[in-house]
């Protein structure tokens, strides 16, 4: 679990982060969502220690990280895997050497053990056989996969991804998202993903933090995000025509459902007969006018698990 508390950061007097706090849970894909220039990447770099915050603190599983002793920070950093926006693969090394690099630097494994781990990681990200290729010889999606393999190779506890699907086609982007989600759950690691892609939110966002002008404006799950009344968040979500249409269809379906239910109730009241099985079932379904109904409570409870 990673906790951030009251993170402030300014560059040349311009506030980029303004008192951001939050908790990123283990085994979940935590998303930092927001438009470009809202401070998502800066916050991520503050968390991993690439940028020193002006104020505030970061804690990794209860261990204070910001401004702590160098050896403690180094110890934590060795548990961190990071996938950069441009993959940041070392140009002069092959795919295999890139994945082997953290093992060589951070572990006492011998060559054979390292190669076993490299091959396992490459297989895990679906790149078996690409060992000897140079980064310049592989596609953007493959580079991201190599980046993920390099991040998980030394058995990382925390995985950070800075816009993992930027510049990729929707299908490849979805595969990368799914891979990150699978790895997070499989190894029970704490994953934080910076994104402005609503598809990622819908597909893999267990917990989402929405940043706006350097401030945390909203926090919640992907099921809750579509029904918020925060203007800035709605403006961000529904900037995409597809999302607008999806919302429109959802609203229309909901209205139709309400109308049908309402008509059914009126009809049943008009006939003044005993409630049928169908009416009993309907009563158990979530009522839009009554969000605290039994079904709504159950769903909310599931989200928290």
């Amino acid at each position, binding site marked *: 679990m990673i906790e951030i508390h009251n993170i402030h950061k300014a560059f040349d007097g311009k506030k980029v982060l303004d008192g951001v706090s939050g908790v990123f849970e283990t085994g979940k894909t935590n998303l930092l969502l927001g438009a470009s220039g809202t401070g998502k990447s800066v916050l991520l770099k503050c968390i991993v220690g*690439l940028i020193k915050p002006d104020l505030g603190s970061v804690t990794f599983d209860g261990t204070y990280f910001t401004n702590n002793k160098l050896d403690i920070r180094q*110890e934590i950093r*060795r548990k961190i895997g990071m996938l950069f926006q441009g993959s940041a693969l070392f*140009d002069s090394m092959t795919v295999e050497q890139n994945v082997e690099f953290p093992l060589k630097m951070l572990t006492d494994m011998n060559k054979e053990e390292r190669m076993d781990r490299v091959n396992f990681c490459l297989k895990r990200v679906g790149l078996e056989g690409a060992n000897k290729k140079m980064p310049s010889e592989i596609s953007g999606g493959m580079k991201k996969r190599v980046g993920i393999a390099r991040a998980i190779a030394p058995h990382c506890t925390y995985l950070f991804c800075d816009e993992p699907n930027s510049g990729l086609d929707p299908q490849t982007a979805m595969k990368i998202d799914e891979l990150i989600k699978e790895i997070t759950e499989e190894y029970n690691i704490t994953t934080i993903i910076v994104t402005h892609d609503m598809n990622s939110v819908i597909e893999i966002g267990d917990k989402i933090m929405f940043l706006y002008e350097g401030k945390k404006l909203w926090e919640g799950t992907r099921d809750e995000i579509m029904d918020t009344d925060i203007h800035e968040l709605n403006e961000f979500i529904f900037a995409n025509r597809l999302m607008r249409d999806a919302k429109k269809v959802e609203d229309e379906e909901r209205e139709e459902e309400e109308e049908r239910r309402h008509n059914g109730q009126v009809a049943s009241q008009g006939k003044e007969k005993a409630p049928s099985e169908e009416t009993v079932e309907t009563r158990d379904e979530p009522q839009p006018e009554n969000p605290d109904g039994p079904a709504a409570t159950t769903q909310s409870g599931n989200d928290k698990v």
Partner: protein
Amino acid sequence: MLQSFGKYLLFMQSLFTRKESAKILFGRTVDEAILIGINSIFIVAIVSTFIGAVTCVQVAYNLNNAFIPRSTIGFMVREMTILELAPTITSIVLAGKVGSSIAGGLGTMQITEQVDALEVMGINSASYLVLPKVVAAILVFPMLVILAMFLSILGGYLAGTLSGELTPQEYITGIRDQFIPYNITFALIKSVVFAFLISSISSFRGYYTSGGALEVGAASTAAVTNSVIAILIGDFVLAYILL
């Protein structure tokens, strides 16, 4: 200017904090020595041979007095080569080749977040990337300067004898005349100092690159110009102190 110098000193200090294991640094140093040394042999050979040849021809052109022995040409070629041309010109050439390569490489690594990737892993990127370059340059530059001295004198010999300006015997007599071994030591000291200046200044320029491709180009240019200025200042200071 002063701020940059302070930043440079802090950068140099950072090379020696949180160093990686000796085994890793040794491996990286050997790699860098190959890149800096082997890849520079050709350009150093070409430049120094022709500089020796041109020096010989120009000295012969100026020494046409019958009272001055022709062996003086060989003597002057040797003195100019050992004291100034081999260490300084070779270093200026290497500032262009090696310095721009170091700054460009580090600058590209910086803007493509490869340096950040090292830092996230808990590796001191400055120490891991720069220290081997500086050590390799200090080890390799004297060897290149020795090669440059030999080839310059050889170039002078070929140019002088083939053009008929002097006989091989006259040239060799001049080369051996009043030889001061300390001059070789002085040249090697200069090469070590210039190696440090070129590799550290170029690394500093490259390491602090931010922006994009344009800035990487600007960092390479700045690395070369700053290195050349530092070489010339260092050359004067060393000559003043050590001669």
